[in-house]
């Protein structure tokens, strides 16, 4: 029994159809992390939650868009609201704009997460401040689908300073980097809009990466790891 099972202390019962969908997803081939990004599909993701506490707060919405062959495919995008039994606080609602009614009208969480997995396939993930998105999604998948969501993630919050070290000290948040590339956000703090802004930032990163002979997802993961060490030293 893993740490999370002990933490939540219950097993999830999925109906057979849901179980079948989950199995199908798990059986899909793993992505080639060394393929050129100009020839692969990556998914950029952003989440909205009830708050910033990784342990106690819950996942409200997921927004995601696909970057395929180095371009954002507008139609290959995804957003979903997970039904909440208890709506988040007013302050929180003011941040992401998903009101109490929308939260209660959201999709049943297991179904919402299955749809997310269907959309994702086995494409590697990209986010800004991965720890947050990763933890929230992992927690929800564990709680509602009952399995450990292990997936490749890439954190632009480390990749960008690695690519543009001259800005590393000044730029911290997504807004800083978006401002640098003049990326407009059509609705800040909506999961899909933030995912698009992150995806645009990723597009900006590609030529910079290629200039450093990083041509695939794995190269950028290595860059991220190195940058984490540098940040640690700082």
């Amino acid at each position, binding site marked *: 029994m893993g740490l999370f099972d002990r933490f939540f202390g219950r097993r999830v019962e999925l109906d057979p159809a849901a179980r079948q969908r989950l199995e199908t997803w798990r059986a899909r081939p793993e992505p080639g992390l060394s393929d050129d990004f100009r020839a692969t599909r990556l998914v950029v993701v952003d989440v909205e939650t009830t708050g910033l506490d990784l342990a106690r707060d819950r996942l409200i919405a997921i927004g995601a*868009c696909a970057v395929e062959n*180095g*371009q*954002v*495919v*507008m*139609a290959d*995008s*995804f*957003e979903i609201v997970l039904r909440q039994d208890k709506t988040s606080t007013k302050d929180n609602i003011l941040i992401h704009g998903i009101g109490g009614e929308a939260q209660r009208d959201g999709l049943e969480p297991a179904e919402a997460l299955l749809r997310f997995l269907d959309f994702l396939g086995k494409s590697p993930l990209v986010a800004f401040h991965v720890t947050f998105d990763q933890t929230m999604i992992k927690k929800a998948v564990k709680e509602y689908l009952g399995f450990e969501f292990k997936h490749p993630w890439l954190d632009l919050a480390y990749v960008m300073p690695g690519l543009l070290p001259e800005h590393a000290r000044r730029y911290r948040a997504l807004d800083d980097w978006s401002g640098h*590339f*003049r*990326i*407009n956000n*059509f*609705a800040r703090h*909506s999961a*899909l*809009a933030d995912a*698009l802004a992150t*995806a*645009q930032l990723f*597009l*900006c990163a*590609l*030529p*910079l990466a290629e200039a450093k002979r990083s041509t695939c997802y794995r190269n950028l993961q290595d860059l991220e790891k190195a940058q984490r060490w540098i940040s640690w030293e700082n």
Partner: protein
Amino acid sequence: MAAPNSLILATAEHLARFAPFDSMAKEHLIWLAERLKLAYYGKGEVLLSPDHGDVKRFYIIKQGAVQVEQTETGGAWLELHEGESFPLGALLGGRTTVSSFKALTDVFTYELDKADFHALLKLSPAFQDFCTRRIATLLERSQRSVQARYATSTAEQQSLRSPLSSIARRKPITCSPDTPLRQALETIQENTISAIVVVEGEDRPVGVFTVRDLISRVILPGTDLNTPMREVMTPNPVSLAPTAHAFEAAMLMARHGFRHVLVADGDRLTGVISEKDLFSLQRVGVTQISASIRGAANLDTLVKAAEDIRRLGHNMMAQGVAAEQLTQILSTLNDILTQRIIELECSATQDCRHAFCWLAFGSEGRLEQTLSTDQDNGIIFTVPEGETADQARACLLPLAERINRALDACGFPLCKGEIMAMNPKWCLSLDEWKATFARWIDAGDPESLLNASIFFDFRPLLGQEKLAEELQAWLLAKTTTTPRFLHQMAANALRNRPPLGLVRDFVVDGEGDQANTLDLKLNGTTPFVDAARVLALATGVAATGTAARLRGAGPKLNIPESEVEAWLSSFFFIQMLRLNGQHEEMEAGKPMDNRIDPDQLNDLDRRILKESFRQARKVQARLALDYKV
């Protein structure tokens, strides 16, 4: 398909802020948004160039600026910004692009596959219309908004533009050249008409007779009523094509004092337009003003008429009358005014025994006067036997000065550069003009080229027009055979480049009140005017107007008509903005000039202005190509 998500909706909404997407149906915008891909190009990266082969995608700028460069000359010629799309021509024609598109800043573009682009053309009429007619579509929308702004009836405006065929519906009453006068007069009385057209063969008009001719040609001379019509009619009547506009007929009447104009399709008479038929033009006041000028007996009356002309110009501006018509109407009325001033001054003096012709230069010479204009004129004369040119000039100069001062009193300020008939330098005999022109053509220094750009637009206003015609013929014979001079004129014209865009690198200059404004004359219309002059002088086109020059030179240079018309649409759009600016300055009680603040324009007009600058660059590219500058 599932309901579009917030990204697709936001993309559709974003596009809907710009033409042509703003006039597309919502479902077509969603259809488009669902097929877009978003791409990024770092500063300096080339998005598209002729090397890329056939164009595979349609690009819409989401953010950033793209510089368009002409591959042949390597010159930047346009900047594109958020909401603008490219390359329409290459996609429609299924070819490679002739320009290259480079990211001037970091750029994000929405991109649509070629097959989807063609599907969208079929799906959305608004999109199709924009892609195929482009500037014409934008202009129509701008004109609609001008009219809406002034909220007046567009009846006047429409009737000004209606073709003569729609006005002259009655079948004209005719007789033959052999018809006896008595019979023709009976016909006139039976039909209660005021004019009869004399035709030969298959309705070929050969003369006109009006009831006004009765007194001078029949009653007073006591003409025999059996005289055939050929002997009393006014021969060689002026006619217009059925496709000509109502305002052209009004101009012809105003200019020559006619009350009737024939409409003829080739050689065949199809109608007669009388002053009465141009009811709406009478309301606008063109005919009243021209009649009051003709009847004016002193300067005071003319000063009032000049005010009327200016008021008329502002009224027509407010009604959204197109610039081409407006500038022609203003120039025509100003011509009539000037002619009357000259007539009055000549009759008040003895020194006009010399045969001379009054010349108009510059914008007046081109029939392109705006609401604010100063004098540019001169005199050409013949030297009488036994006199020298200087002696003749000495007689003419005092007269010229009185005319110049009278024009000044009528609101045409004396020319600061002293290009006026009262200046001995510009009151010359035919031979002296030829010598002066020849000197400029042979010297080709900056001052000569500048002079050529003013004086070579000359047009006779009153007097011995044959002198001006002879000078014109001589000039064209000289310029068409002096390629070096044309090359210098072209190079000179290309020194004045239209701005690339409206945001960055936009030619806003001036100081104080003029800060951040753009000179629409220098940067906007001058490139067209200069190019038209060079092309006309090169091909021997005698017209002086920019439109007439380009329309005349175009076919001789194998320039497609559609291209010439796109240039002219742009030229007249900028003229309209100039007029509009002057109109608003006058309303606000400010001095009139040619400057506008581009930030004050609405989005649509700003967009068209940019497109017009692009056309100006195309005209210049044509010059550069022809003269290898």
